[in-house]
């Protein structure tokens, strides 16, 4: 590329363009038209004159594009021409192409590829003289061979060359040129190179043979000095490889050629390979393909209908998860791979797409589903032909060993041309012949080898995928295209659809209802009837016909959807081709009778009374209007207001309501006196045995905090109860926990200060509720608290604080010893404990 920008190159190009323009001027219109067909990029935009055409045709970007469309024969000839000095002759070309041992190549055989190159304006011919466009010198490693040895080795210092000649046993000559010439001579002699490689250490020989087969480059990191003991070193020191830079080795062209016996292509493929085909009855192909086509159409509808009800989630990384692919596979009775491709195909057709994390059918699906089966198929085929994505990639095993999910929405513009290439190959097979996939693959890869590089998989894998896609779509079967398939490939989709319609079941709205509670639909059911029937019966088997089964559950679904027993019977009667069997009608009527006998609704609370007249009064009282009371039964009212509001409102209205607990007993408003949790140390340190002494019992009774004045009594008990639970389960941090002596001391102190002061809790609160209660209490009692607190930045540190006020989710504290006030968030408190008296004195 860099060379292309040099001034000299541009000059050459211009002169080449001139030469091409001269040649083109002699072409007739037909030839020019053919050029535009073969190189469509030259025709858009249309060139104004031949000079512009020639300039564009000899630009590297256009030439590179053209190379991708060359068949293998043309390409091999082109590559061989690149190896020869320009201009050259047909004889010289034939001489290089024919192996030294084998029979000489017939010049006539070269005519087709040469003409192919000429017609693509890549080659200029004058009589026997051949000249490639100079721009083709940019072709990297033609025929998998490196640059000429003279160019590569010429860059070496004379001493290196002399040493190399010595190693090769050529004897050291006085001048660099002489050494170079003798080395290049040796490298160009196949017999001597072969002997050299045979004598090489085995690693070196293997590497030489590998690079000889092409491509001629090895990458590594290599040092500046290469030792003989490594394979690379051995070869480099003998000129079989040349080090381009610190990490690239290249094999000189002569070495590669010598290793191939002097001929660039040991297997020359100037003619297309034969496609192996065996006989097959066209009728069988038609039938099998039609079956596949119709089944695909039905299966796409099945999957998307399912998605319409329960849309699958799309993976975060994009694509449809394996579980969902399995679901589709189960619904259609296909393999996971086929199901994935089916989904991909539906997406290509614009029937479904990922949307907001879900895969959903698109509105176009409804229009598609309403069309006859054959038209639906044509739509799928049309989309597939133009899809710039390899449908076969979905479901294939990816690089991570897992199947590639469908709906990845990839982009592969070459997919269209690749697909066309395979279809062309298949279309070339006779109607009554079945081609073997392997030979088709060979043919396709011969026809346009450049098309298959840079795909998402190896070329033969890509061909295989496309062949499988063709079978999936029912364009062909058994290695042969079906008649609708051929029409579709030729772009005659309407006719193709008509051809398939011959096999498609007629659309009807008739159903055969049977006494074993099944319904059989032969062929295709009109979409509205199908939707309705699917509501009231479950599909039991599908295929050419669909068998539905009525069951309690399926009919209940219909009732839930608002259909009445009469509606159902009317529907069945209008569509039942042979009447409605008596047991089915009975089942519908019987379920209709039972449906909705049990009613379920929501209400927040109820009001009940033994006396219906009292409830009637409450219901009509003006003051209870705001409660939205409804009467369920003479003795039961319900309301959506919460129980407290209802109670309060009723009280205000002058009634005397009482709250009920779930078990029916009365909920008492009077609260128990509050008690602190039992300190865990007491339970632990006291050994079981003699009954406790009376003073100790009394002291324990007095340990709990007194109820704080002015606090609503109602809210307390549940909080304390929870607090108690928390304290029993909380695991104190062993490092922070005061040892046992301290605890005993603490409790003794508690005993000592009986009546004067509330004992300080010795437990460590970890849970939000417990922390809150502890801080609350500490602020009331003016205790200091030690806590671990996580800052907004996520750092956790310990604080000693004097809680001032607990407010909502926050607590206002004074931090010690500095004394600044801070507002802490309760949920960030990791743990908290009240300081002992002694600790408090220390801090203060």
């Amino acid at each position: 590329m860099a060379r292309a920008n040099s001034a000299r190159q541009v000059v050459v190009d211009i002169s080449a363009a001139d030469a091409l323009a001269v040649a083109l001027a002699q072409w007739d219109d037909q030839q020019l038209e053919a050029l535009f067909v073969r190189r469509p990029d030259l025709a858009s935009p249309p060139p104004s004159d031949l000079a512009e055409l020639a300039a564009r045709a000899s630009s590297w970007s256009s030439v590179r594009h053209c190379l991708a469309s060359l068949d293998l024969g043309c390409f091999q000839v082109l590559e061989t021409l690149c190896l020869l000095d320009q201009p050259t002759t047909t004889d010289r070309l034939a001489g290089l192409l024919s192996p030294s041992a084998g029979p000489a190549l017939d010049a006539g055989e070269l005519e087709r590829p040469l003409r192919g190159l000429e017609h693509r304006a890549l080659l200029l011919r004058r009589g026997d003289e051949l000249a490639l466009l100079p721009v083709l010198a940019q072709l990297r490693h033609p025929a998998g061979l490196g640059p000429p040895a003279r160019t590569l080795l010429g860059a070496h210092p004379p001493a290196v060359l002399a040493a190399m000649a010595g190693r090769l046993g050529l004897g050291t000559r006085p001048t660099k040129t002489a050494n170079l010439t003798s080395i290049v001579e040796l490298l160009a002699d196949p017999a001597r190179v072969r002997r050299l490689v045979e004598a090489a250490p085995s690693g070196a020989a293997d590497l030489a043979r590998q690079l000889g087969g092409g491509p001629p480059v090895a990458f590594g990191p290599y040092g500046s000095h290469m030792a003989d003991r490594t394979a690379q070193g051995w070869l480099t020191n003998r000129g079989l490889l040349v080090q381009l830079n610190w990490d690239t080795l290249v094999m000189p062209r002569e070495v590669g050629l010598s290793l191939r016996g002097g001929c660039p292509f040991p297997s020359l493929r100037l003619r297309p390979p034969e496609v192996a085909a065996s006989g097959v009855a066209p009728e069988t192909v038609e039938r099998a393909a039609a079956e596949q086509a119709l089944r695909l159409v039905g299966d796409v509808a099945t999957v998307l209908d399912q998605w319409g009800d329960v849309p699958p989630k799309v993976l975060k990384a994009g694509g449809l998860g394996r579980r969902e692919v399995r679901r589709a596979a189960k619904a259609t009775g296909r393999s996971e791979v086929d199901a994935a491709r089916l989904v991909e195909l539906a997406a290509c057709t614009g029937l479904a797409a990922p949307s907001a994390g879900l895969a959903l059918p698109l509105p176009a699906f409804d229009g598609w589903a309403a069309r006859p089966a054959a038209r639906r198929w044509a739509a799928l085929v049309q989309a597939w032909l133009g899809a710039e994505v390899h449908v076969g990639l979905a479901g294939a095993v990816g690089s991570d060993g897992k199947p590639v999910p469908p709906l990845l929405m990839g982009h592969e513009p070459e997919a269209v041309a690749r697909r066309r290439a395979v279809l062309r190959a298949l279309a070339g097979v006779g109607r009554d012949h079945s081609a073997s996939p392997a030979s088709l693959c060979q043919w396709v890869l011969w026809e346009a080898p450049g098309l298959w590089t840079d795909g998402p998989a190896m070329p033969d894998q890509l061909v295989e995928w496309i062949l499988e896609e063709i079978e999936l779509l029912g364009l062909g079967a058994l290695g042969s295209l079906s008649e609708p398939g051929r029409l579709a490939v030729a772009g005659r989709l309407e006719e193709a659809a008509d051809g398939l319609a011959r096999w498609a079941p007629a659309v009807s709205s008739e159903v055969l209802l049977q006494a074993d509670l099944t319904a059989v639909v032969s062929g295709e059911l009109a979409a509205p009837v199908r939707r309705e029937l699917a509501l009231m019966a479950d599909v039991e088997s599908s295929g050419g016909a669909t068998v539905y089964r009525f069951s309690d559950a399926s009919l209940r679904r219909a009732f839930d959807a608002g259909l009445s027993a009469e509606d159902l019977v009317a529907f069945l009667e209008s569509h039942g081709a042979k009447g409605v069997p008596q047991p089915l009608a009975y089942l519908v009527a019987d379920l209709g009778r039972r449906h909705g006998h049990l009613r379920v609704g929501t209400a927040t609370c109820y009001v009940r009374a033994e006396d219906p007249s009292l409830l009637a009064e409450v219901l009509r009282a003006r003051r209870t209007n705001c409660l939205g009371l409804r009467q369920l039964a003479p003795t039961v009212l319900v309301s959506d207001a919460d129980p407290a509001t209802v109670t309060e409102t009723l009280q205000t209205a002058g009634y005397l309501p009482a709250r009920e607990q779930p078990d029916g007993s009365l909920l008492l408003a009077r609260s128990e006196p509050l008690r602190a949790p039992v300190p865990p140390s007491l339970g632990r340190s006291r050994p079981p045995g003699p009954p406790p002494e009376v003073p100790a019992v009394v002291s324990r009774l007095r340990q709990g905090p007194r109820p704080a004045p002015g606090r609503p009594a109602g809210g307390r008990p549940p909080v304390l109860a929870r607090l108690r639970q928390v304290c029993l389960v909380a695991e104190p941090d062993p490092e922070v926990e005061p040892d046992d002596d301290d605890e005993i001391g603490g409790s003794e102190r508690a005993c000592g200060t009986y009546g004067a002061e509330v004992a300080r809790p010795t437990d460590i609160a970890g849970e939000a509720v417990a922390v809150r209660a502890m801080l609350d209490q500490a602020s009331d009692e003016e205790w200091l608290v030690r806590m671990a607190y996580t800052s907004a930045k996520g750092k956790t540190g310990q604080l000693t604080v004097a809680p001032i006020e607990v407010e909502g989710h926050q607590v206002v504290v004074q931090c010690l010893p500095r004394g600044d006030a801070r507002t802490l968030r309760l949920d960030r408190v990791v743990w908290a404990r009240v300081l002992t008296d002694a600790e408090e004195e220390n801090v203060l």
Partner: protein
Amino acid sequence: MTDGPLIIQSDRTLLLEVDHPDAPACRAAIAPFAELERSPEHVHTYRLTPLGLWNARAAGRDAEQVVDALLRWSRYPVPQALLVDVAEVMDRYGRLVLEVDPVHGLVLRTTDRAVLEEVLRAKAVVPLVGPRIDAEVVAVPREVRGRLKQALLKVGWPAEDRAGHVEGTAHAMTLREGAGFELRPYQREAVEAFLAAGSGVVVLPCGAGKTLVGAAAMARAGARTLVLVTNTVAARQWRAELLARTSLTEDEVGEYSGERKEVRPVTVSTYQILVTRRGGLYPHMELFSAEDWGLVVYDEVHLLPAPVFRMTADIQSRRRLGLTATLVREDGREGDVFSLIGPKRYDAPWRDIEAQGWIAPAACTEIRVTLTDEERMSYAVAEAEDRYRVGACARSKLAVVQAICREALARREPTLVIGQYIDQLEVLAERLGAPLVMGRTPVRERQRLYQAFRQGQEPVLVVSKVANFSVDLPEASVAVQVSGTFGSRQEEAQRLGRILRPKADGRQAHFFAVVSRDTNDQDFAARRQRFLAEQGYAYRIIDAEAVLRSGPASPAGLASPPLGLAPGVTESGMASGQAPAPGEGPAPGEGPAPGEGPAPREGPAPRGPAS
């Protein structure tokens, strides 16, 4: 799209549209390889299973015939994969052959070495084969012939048994054809098909004369025969039948049962006695080796108990004839029947035989009884395990059963009342003034009652579960089921079989199921309905009120359509309150035309839910 009668589904079921003009031809083409699964009125369902395909292969059909039949009759394109699979599956049968080698004795020979290598690596097969003789042959110890066949079937390579059968001790007997009976054509075909193969199963519906097929096969085999039946009563009936239909004399036919232990040239024994265990052993299994039997007949092969399979595996060199109405086994051991008794050799769809006029078409009616509030409450509060009994034994059923019996009596229809719970049956027997046959009833008494029932002295018989198996009650034309063991498929087939016996005058048989509404009795009835409808029987559901309204009022109401006992009386007849003229009962031979659906299908619409 062609116009064939067959539709092939992706789940390998075949749907046959019976009203299609080509349906009979298509049925004949697919019946040999596809198993009839359901035969409701319009579309019959067949299933392609490996076992079915192998059965066909065993009967000499090849994959090409099967594929041809599918392609020829299919309305829509047939999935290529299915055709390929059919061919592959069928090809599996016969790759391995069990045969007798003059040098090495019993051997397993293959035409495909890879298959032999594969099966010889299967864990189940390894312990059953002897030394390898060459690449294609492996020796097989004689005693594992049956077990090897079982194992090979399990690994998917069923072996064809060409090792032949021993003749057994000859014992001449002939069939007394001409003396009041003739073998029907299908019976003759069944016998021929069996004898050509030497062992296998003949599938015929109840009442189609399986006993006679057995007797004919015995006469043709002309060897000492062991007949295995389900219980003692059935054993005595077999014995009586053999004495009546063949040249065998009293001395030649023995009974080997709980009561008698006779081993004679023809011995009839029961599965019951064979599987009696003492000290962990089956002392009566010796019977298999007590004589040099030339033929072993297994009646009701779908009920064959597992220990008998084991014994059968050891007598693979004897001819074996299985007789059954259905190959469907509740335990799913259809494969064992295939390996050990033999492939299916003959079958005929029930409805076809009916259409030929051999079996009275039966009409099935489910009568839904609305329980009283009290009964509903006791059902509602019953423990889960008692619920079925409480629901099924509702006293509200009594009146309905009485009404049916009264009507049947008036029409001189011999009637069976079948139930599961003894206390319910006792009350019924008392109310109906009919004798009760149950497990406790001595065999002698049982036989006396059956005899009286047959001769018309006892028009109504109340029977418990004992009636389920092999009791021959030729004149029963009405059966009323008041409770049953959870509607197993087999039981239904048996119960329906009770009343399917050919009637001398071609009258229609009736099957009534009295069911308590809104209880799980009804759920079980739903399963029964499905099964019977799948078997192609007309099924309808009516309300008890309809029966009771028309029933007790006047004798004229007896023939009213709610019960449908009189064919040909339409709804209009009832709606206008017209009573059928006396003596309008069906004349002999005046049943529905062959092939036509039984009359009650056109019966009145349900009225219960509306009221």
